[in-house]
């Protein structure tokens, strides 16, 4: 829509995707699967325990076993495995692979050579300890990310907030977090409506300079609206007996 300036459109579309994604995730959390039937506090503590275990153990086979358990739990919780793998493999594990790449080589991790080749006159050697370290790191990141995604998919956000209060987080922080989450949707909806209004009036293409001006004005406008909204919400809270102390 914004010629030569597609990042603006991509940003808007990503914001809308967040909304759709969260609605879909909430639908998964509402299914009658294995994890969804377990009491939220137990579920959070169990998955956090598995994440901690993954971080502490150095045995790759055990980490793979935890990963296999995670996939089995996802399937038993009625989550489509293709969707689950897409969500868990796309970013963080791939980035971790890039991070760990240098440690494969003898220059950083000396040891028994597994594979050597020459490039631009330099001898590059992958060592056994380097490879094992890299596999351990990537396996650990993937398993932790998968467990965290599994928890977020099977637990509604308000259940997660309730669990926070079990860990004795002050009620005012839990309430503020809940309200932030709630109002993100109000703003995403505002962005969606603005985008649709612009699309309906500007057609399918808009010069990027006009696009930038419109987006800049809307960012400012959204900021002012958020200030007004916070004042109105505070009034609504006071009207129902809020006196600055969350209960």
């Amino acid at each position, binding site marked *: 829509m914004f010629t030569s300036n597609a990042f603006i459109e991509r940003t808007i579309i990503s914001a809308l995707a967040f909304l759709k994604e969260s609605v879909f995730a909430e639908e998964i959390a509402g299914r009658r699967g294995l994890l969804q039937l377990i009491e939220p506090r137990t579920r959070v503590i169990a998955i956090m325990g598995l994440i901690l275990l993954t971080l502490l153990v150095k045995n790759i086979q055990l980490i793979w076993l935890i990963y296999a358990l995670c996939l089995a739990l996802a399937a038993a919780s009625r989550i489509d495995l293709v969707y689950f793998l897409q969500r868990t493999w796309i970013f963080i594990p791939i980035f971790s692979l890039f991070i760990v790449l240098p440690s494969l080589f003898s220059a950083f991790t000396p040891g028994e050579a597994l594979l050597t080749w020459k490039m631009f006159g330099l001898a590059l050697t992958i060592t056994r300890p380097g490879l094992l370290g890299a596999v351990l790191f990537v396996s650990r990141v993937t398993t932790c990310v998968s467990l965290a995604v599994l928890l977020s998919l099977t637990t*509604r956000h308000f259940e997660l907030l309730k669990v926070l209060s079990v860990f004795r987080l002050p009620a005012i922080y839990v309430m503020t977090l809940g309200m932030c989450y709630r109002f993100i949707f109000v703003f995403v909806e505002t962005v969606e409506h603005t985008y649709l209004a612009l699309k309906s009036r500007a057609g399918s293409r808009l010069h990027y300079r006009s696009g930038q001006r419109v987006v800049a004005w809307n960012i400012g406008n959204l900021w002012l609206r958020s200030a007004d909204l916070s004042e*109105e919400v505070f009034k609504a809270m006071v*009207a*129902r*007996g809020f006196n600055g102390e969350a209960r």
Partner: protein
Amino acid sequence: MTEKIFELNDVHFSYLGKFPALQGITINVERGELVTVIGANGSGKSTLLQLLDGLIFPDRGRITAFSEELSEKLLNNEAFSRSFRKKVGLVFQDSSIQLFCPTVEEDILFGPVQLGLPEPDIRRRLNQLTELLGIQELLSRSPHRLSIGERKKVAIASTLIGRPDVLLLDEPTAGLDPATTRHIIEILIGFHRQGKTLVISTHDLNLAEELGGTIHVFGHEKRIVASGKTEDILKDEALLQDNNLTHSHIHRHGGSLHSHPHSSATHHQQHDL
């Protein structure tokens, strides 16, 4: 002898000290009374309700509630504030703002929990209200996933659960479909029959006509231009038209076009003839 709930004497209010919203408002609201405030958009109706609810305070003039002059200092007194908030409930015009919790259930329970009502009482009231409003299925949903009508019902439930003696409603039926509007009107009439005091702002003359009671008309100058019984005020076509509450309505009767002012009362009377 009737008990005065609110007494407003020459109340002025402006936003940021320079945009007048109300000028010289003098009205009384008595216990058990049903007061409707009508006026065009921007005539100060919402501001009046927020003043009555002690959320904002006049620049000039006095507002007395339950024989005490409302002031910021008085509302900061915890004992008075708690007692006042239990007695007076406000349903905001924009339900999206009023519903600020992650789930419908938490939102409805927010007020009673803040006011420290006992848990069993809260649960009993929740069950009764959700049944009355037909919103049992919505309790675990997020407010952002509700329709406008559902949001309005939840906003009403979140106010009614405190069982206030006085209910202030800002445009309670704006933007709702006919069935939801009907349901809400019936609930409000039932609430009034229980002896509760209602102050309702609207520009929907059908709603005003159906509710009856006392009516105050807000004019362009942010002042009350007329007050009286609903049936008398709604007959005054010139008054309604001057204040943007009616417009000329043209429609077809058989083969000929027919025009008359479009207000509820006059519309029905003309069609009855």
